[in-house]
């Protein structure tokens, strides 16, 4: 540093770069942190679990360590009929989502309610817990909060799972992992734009719709439709199943890849899936030699395809 100019320059640089970081990091962080979580944000993180990408519990993104979402109509403890309820079941050792671990993320009022009314912080990962999202009114405004129903009503994870048959269980957390791992978000956004898209893809999200979720996987590039509300447009499992196995079965012009490998080795009835035979039969169909395409196997309960369909159908 032979010249005085260089000393001045280095300080100027520190000042310029520092102020830029202050404006682009500190100020937005404070602003975003002041936003309270909406019902959507709570539902999303409870369904997805702790992380949607690489994590300790699931380094190879196989969908380990994720909660199960169930829809129940009977009280798991007493067996009495209740309002249809969506509960998020965390069996022991399944990591809790970030909003539960750090209630501050939910914003001032929701976190206070979740702790005082919902007893959210009484939940213990080693024991497992069941959560539901509730709403209450405070000063005329409805405020969502998370209720730890294991503490408030004695719904244990096992009992709650037992109340839901296969049709009422959704592996949404595992499905989100599949969505991230398979890079669906390179072609589909999860962010209807504020300026248009309303009619076609539905309402854009609110400021507080993501508190606690990571990664948000908005996507930047659309080669296919936005998926934020796809479950409201099309809730047919059958269609999704055909479409994921081979999109060209239902949409001949689609450029979406086939995801048949997510079916695994066996179908829902435990029969091995013969991919070579299927592809050969499909090629025959495509060439116009047969009238009907080969039958698509129903995915097994523990298959990746099942989880992905659960995730997609539940994007309401």
């Amino acid at each position, binding site marked *: 540093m*032979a*010249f005085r100019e*260089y000393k001045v320059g280095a300080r100027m*640089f520190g000042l*310029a*770069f520092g102020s*830029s*970081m202050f404006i*682009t*990091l500190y100020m*937005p962080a404070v*602003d*975003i*942190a002041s*936003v309270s979580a909406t019902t959507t*944000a709570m539902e999303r993180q409870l369904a997805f679990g*702790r*992380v949607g*990408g*690489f994590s300790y519990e699931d380094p*190879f*993104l196989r969908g380990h360590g994720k909660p199960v979402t169930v829809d129940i109509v009977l009280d798991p403890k007493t067996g009495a009929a209740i309002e249809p309820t969506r509960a998020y079941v965390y069996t022991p050792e399944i990591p809790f989502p970030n909003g539960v671990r750090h209630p501050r993320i939910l914003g001032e009022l929701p976190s206070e309610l979740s702790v005082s009314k919902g007893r959210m912080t009484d939940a213990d990962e080693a024991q497992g817990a069941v959560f539901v999202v509730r709403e209450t009114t405070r000063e005329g405004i409805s405020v969502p909060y998370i209720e730890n129903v294991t503490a408030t009503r004695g719904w244990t994870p096992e009992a709650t799972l037992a109340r839901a048959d296969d049709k009422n269980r959704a592996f949404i957390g595992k499905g989100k992992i599949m969505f*991230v*791992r*398979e890079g*669906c*978000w*390179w*072609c589909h956004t999860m*962010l209807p*734009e*504020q*300026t*248009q898209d309303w009619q*076609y893809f539905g309402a*854009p999200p609110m*400021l507080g*719709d*993501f*508190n*606690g979720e990571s*990664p*948000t*996987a*908005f996507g*930047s*590039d*659309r*080669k*296919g439709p936005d998926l934020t509300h796809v479950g409201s447009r099309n809730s047919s499992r059958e269609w999704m199943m055909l479409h994921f196995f081979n999109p*060209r079965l239902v949409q001949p*012009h*689609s*450029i979406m*890849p*086939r995801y*048949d*490998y997510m079916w695994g080795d066996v179908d829902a009835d435990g029969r091995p899936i013969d*991919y070579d035979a299927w*592809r050969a039969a499909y090629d025959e169909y495509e060439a116009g030699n047969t009238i009907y395409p080969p039958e698509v196997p129903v995915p097994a309960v523990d298959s990746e395809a099942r989880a992905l369909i659960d995730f997609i159908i539940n994007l309401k």
Partner: protein
Amino acid sequence: MFKYLFAKNEDIPAGSAAVFFGFSSIVWFVVGTAMGSFNAAKLAFPDFVTGSEILSFGHMRQVHVLAVILGWISMAFAMAMMYITPALGNTKLWSEKLGVWNCFLWNVGLSLGLFLLWLGVTSGREYSDLPWPIDIVVIIGLLVPLGINVWMTIKTRRVQGIYTTNWFFAAATFMVVIVFTVGNAPEFFQLTGLTEAYLTWWFAHNVLGLWITPVAAAIAYYVVPKVTGNPLYSHRIGHLHFWSVVVFYSTPAAHHLMSAPLPEWLKSFASVEGVLILVPAIAFVSNLLLTMTGKWRMFVENIEIKFTITGVMMAIPLNMQGGFQQTRAINWYVHGTGWMVAHAHLALLGFSTFLEAAAVYYGLQTLLRRKLYSLGLANFHFWMLLIGFTTYWVSMTIAGLIQGAGKIYEVPYIDVVIAEHPYMIARWVGGTMVFLGNCVWLYNMWMTARAGTVIPAGRLPHELAYER
């Protein structure tokens, strides 16, 4: 290379690290563009190679992107820094051994990271896709050692002043470490929601703005005066460029999320700052084009100048697009369409790649003291890159405009997909030309090292270009 890892620093010939970096970068360029071409084929013909998890589009796309950014572009940068910084300081690289280790770790770390990414081990965040343990390897094994070498070389220089190129190198190696550390904080510390989304784009924007763009420009600040023999047109304008990069380019990150529910003030601020990026852009382009005064025939005759000036000229449409497409008035139309893919390739494959290619051409000839094996093949490479890139850019821009129209008129999506199909094929053809050109380049540089005419002491490679 391996024998130098454990040699004494004094025993390693000067320039070894730069040569290793140079060849590694070309190899990564070939690998990265091969993947790009493969992905493009998949988007044009969806049933091309199907039924395998790791060869599906969603597993390959990010590997292409990071292979070209961290493999090709950043390693070419490291190569340039390792020969230009000492040359401008009239000294040797501070530690050749650190440089060789840096190159070794870079190749190993990047291969490991991309392999994991390929298997699907991802953080799910665009551009910061690598899982956080690999991010730490990138910071500690790749970027910090490079920065130390550059800073110490500048510190131990044997000239009084510091030339423009070296301000940029010093600032950029520092800023990129900050950008990587802060940008990956959501993974290190489990930050969530909009903070995570915003930091993802804060990272992506600043990697481009505080690493790729300034370093590429810095290289041009060296190559053009050096090869033409003209002094830089104006150091004042160089100052303007430097300071406006630091101030304006580091702030508009939020313009990547114009349609997300971020605070409105942040989006407006980002958008204004984004237009101001035109300041460094114009400073840079005008400074270099004016430096060419009187030497324009070299644009035709000399391969390094041909690459550099083409790259500099591509900065004009690049920044015109960049400055305006991020304003609300235009962004709503082109956001999330192929237009952006075209723009990204104009920045990285057009502007930046052309500047680095010149630096690698020039650096390898100087360091190896050998004349280019074949000027004909180099020209072939240039035209393959230029025509291939142009085909890519034009086709994706058209596809993007179609998508934009489809978006605002709410056309059923599948009609947009059908309309884009011919352009997807054109993009694949263009990209494949780039890939093939690069294979030729690798061959040419390899043969240069093996069989190029030796450059006598005291001569510069470009002076000999036409001598037989």
